[in-house]
């Protein structure tokens, strides 16, 4: 049981690390897709089937696509993926911070008494999920819908670029 988890974790983290350390932006994104898939696998492993597929659909299907688009739209030449200059110190600091955070978190997790007994998987079918969504968090659902719409429109507006403003109107 735990070996599967370890496998998933290893794959996810490994791909993520390589992606974030890599030089080729495109490879990074594809690796990210893999690590997202790993997370989906984790969801599947812990029985959250719906969440897993949603994760795969949204991240691999949509977000990675959008990122790829962004990459294609924002590069001078194909070989624009040169590593950032003079960032060794920064990278070092970043890794230091990361390890510190990880250490603290893991320490906190390890030192806190958490339910040790593996409980049975809570049964959640799509239907029950739907009912639950329509229950208390219905308002949140609506809000999320609005949020997504607004985000869509906003993204379009921002990315579409601004029309030249007339000198007449005030700043």
């Amino acid at each position, binding site marked *: 049981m*735990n070996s599967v*988890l*370890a496998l998933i*974790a290893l794959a*996810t*983290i490994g791909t*993520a690390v390589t*992606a*974030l350390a890599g030089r080729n*932006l495109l490879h*990074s994104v594809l690796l*990210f897709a893999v690590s997202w898939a790993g997370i989906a696998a*984790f969801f599947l492993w*812990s*029985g*959250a089937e*719906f*969440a897993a597929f*949603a*994760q795969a659909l949204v*991240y691999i299907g*949509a*977000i990675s696509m*959008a*990122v790829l688009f*962004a*990459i294609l*739209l924002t590069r*001078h030449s194909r070989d624009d993926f040169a590593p*950032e200059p003079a*960032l060794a110190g*920064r990278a070092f600091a*970043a890794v230091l*911070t*990361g390890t510190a*955070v990880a250490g603290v*978190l*893991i320490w906190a*997790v*390890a030192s806190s008494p*958490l*339910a*040790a*007994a*593996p*409980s049975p998987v*809570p*049964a959640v079918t799509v239907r*029950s999920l739907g009912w*639950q969504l329509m229950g208390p*968090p219905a308002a949140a659902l609506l809000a*999320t819908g609005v949020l*997504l719409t*607004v*985000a*869509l429109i*906003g*993204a379009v507006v*921002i*990315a579409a670029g601004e029309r030249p403003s007339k000198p007449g109107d005030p700043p």
Partner: protein
Amino acid sequence: MSPLQLCLAFSSVLFAVGLAGALARSNAILVLLGIELMLNAANLNFIAFWRYGPATSPSTGVIFVLFSIAVAAAEAAVGLALIIAIYRHQRSIRLPEAARLKG
């Protein structure tokens, strides 16, 4: 370590990796991806607690995750749009060069 703690450790490491990436890289897209990764780590926690934590209503964690996935999607969309806008202004998406608001 109990399975729950393993899951949490997993998510913490993932979070840290995302954080380190977001800090280390100067490419806006990679920073955004790092932040997405941090979000994912949070999702892992939701699921982990839903799976092993004290029993709440049977699908709370999943609902949480769904919401946060939706939010993440929105965030990614807007973030990428912003990156493109930045790129249009100064022909680069390196964050250090995008510090022109300072004054």
